């Protein structure tokens, strides 16, 4: 898994609304535990009232990842709060690995206040894309969204994660249908394509499927809550 090898001090997970940032952030943070270093995942989503990294707190703790959650996440308090400990972590010089799950689109404006510290610590910023999200369904629209995020956050996207999915209905064909889109987005942005995610629970395993030969596949665990 790519994140194990890269493991910079800070990894920012950004993207369009509903691209699946939280799922990617939770999974990458859990995978980063393979480095043996302490791993934190900060929920810095100021735009999404319900489905967010705070939902996965129990799962993260189970894997030894420390969740940093705003005090009022998932409560009835409708204010854009950030986890206070994130500042101390970023401004320190510890050996920990910090993942930051930011809100969609201009929700990334919260990164501005941390940008200097993030740059000082060294970072990757992965832009999560989903071909089946209508407003970013064309590579040029996805790239435009990424540029807006870069502008709001003061940080540069360093890699693309193709998280294309139709939720529970996702098939292998849906993922195959997104490969060209992901490659084109990475090409326009001039950054590497980190890989293509899939949830084996939903799509099944792709090992041995020749159509996926030569692609970097990233199997993921489910991290969002089911209501029914």
């Amino acid at each position, binding site marked *: 898994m790519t994140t194990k090898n890269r493991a910079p001090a800070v990894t920012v997970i950004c993207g369009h*609304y509903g691209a699946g940032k939280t799922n990617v952030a939770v999974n990458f943070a859990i995978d980063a535990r393979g480095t043996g270093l302490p791993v934190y995942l900060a929920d810095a989503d100021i735009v999404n009232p*319900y*489905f967010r990294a705070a939902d996965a707190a129990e799962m993260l703790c189970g894997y030894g990842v420390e969740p940093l959650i705003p005090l009022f996440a998932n409560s009835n308090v409708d204010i854009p709060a950030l986890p206070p400990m994130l500042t101390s972590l970023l401004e320190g010089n510890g050996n920990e690995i910090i993942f930051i799950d930011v809100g969609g689109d201009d929700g990334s404006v919260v990164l501005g206040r941390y940008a200097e510290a993030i740059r000082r610590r060294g970072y990757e910023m992965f832009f999560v894309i989903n071909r*089946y*999200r*209508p407003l970013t369904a064309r590579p040029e629209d996805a790239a435009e969204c990424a540029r807006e995020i870069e502008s709001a956050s003061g940080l540069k996207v360093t890699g693309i994660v193709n998280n294309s999915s*139709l939720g*529970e209905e996702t098939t292998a064909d849906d993922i195959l249908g997104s490969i060209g889109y992901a490659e084109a987005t990475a090409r326009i942005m001039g950054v590497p394509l980190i890989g293509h995610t899939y949830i084996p629970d939903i799509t099944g395993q792709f090992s041995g499927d020749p159509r996926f030969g030569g692609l970097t596949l990233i199997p993921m665990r489910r991290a969002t809550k089911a*209501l029914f």
Partner: protein
Amino acid sequence: MPDHGNGKCVEVAEKVLMKGNEAIAEAAINAGCLYYFGYPITPQTEISEYMAKRMPKVGGLCLQAESEISAINMTMGAAASGTRAMTSSSSPGISLKSEGISYIAGCDLPCLIVNVQRGGPGLGGIQPSQSDYYQATRGVGHGDLRLIVLAPSSVQEMASLTAEAFDLADTYRMPAMLLADGALGQMMEPVDFSLFEKRDVPEKEWAANGHGGKRKKNIINSLFIDPQELENSVVARYERYKKVEENEVKYEEFMTDDADIVLVAFGITARVAKSAITAVRESGIKAGLLRPITLWPFPKGAIGAIADRAKIFLTVEMNMGQMIDDVRLAVGGKCPVDGYTRTGGIIPSVDEVEDKIRRIAASL
């Protein structure tokens, strides 16, 4: 797929993954809505955000008004021009709109009002709720009036019922409401925009859209000085309401054929109810679901018919028990009607509902 003017067609893939709120907005644009007036409130603000991005591309207007009250009155003005218009809000915002909704009903104007419900009363909370059932079906504004009220249960239905609401509003020249909740607004599911059916709707000969001296002017008004004239206008409106009740009732039945215990649930709780029914069926408990899709007109005929063969009804609602009144009226005393409710923004879990059904089954 439809393309609107110089705006790009949004359906790049056959199916897209959308939040419920986005699906409402895109479906409205697909249905030819050209005016959206809103004011932000969680958990429906994505409708405004999506409209702000898309409306300029289809030659329409998305305007953030200075308040919910302004937004509903702007919607009234736009609807008076005969163009498809809509507004959206969440519970407290709908209360603010109630005067305008009454005026729209009094003026016989078709438009769409979306309520993505959150907890109440008062400022309540931002978590999902169904506690505006009474408001939507009984008291959404002063005076003798009805709204057509549609209750989606999936993101696909957030889209398809938005389109249907516009058609119904135009057909019967009255406002329609989409009554969703925060969970449906925020959750993401695939949507296929090719599945919609469109109706032929009547020409809007009443529209105040400029006559150029070629016809008598149209006046849109809800004020009647003469009581007899007001009574006539209300009675005429109720004749149309009667036609809606005769022709537009929608519901879904799930395993009701042999059901002893019939659950009645709408929106998100119908999803919970279905899972619970599937679970108890495995242990031989004969449970089924009637899901009202139109809350007004309410499927009282269908419920009454099931009441002839069922042993008990169980409503599941995210409020203190509001729809249960309509179920009781429809059942007409033929069998008992029980209720399972959660409120405050809490969605009942499948386990809770399953447990309630099992306890009822044990008592039969």
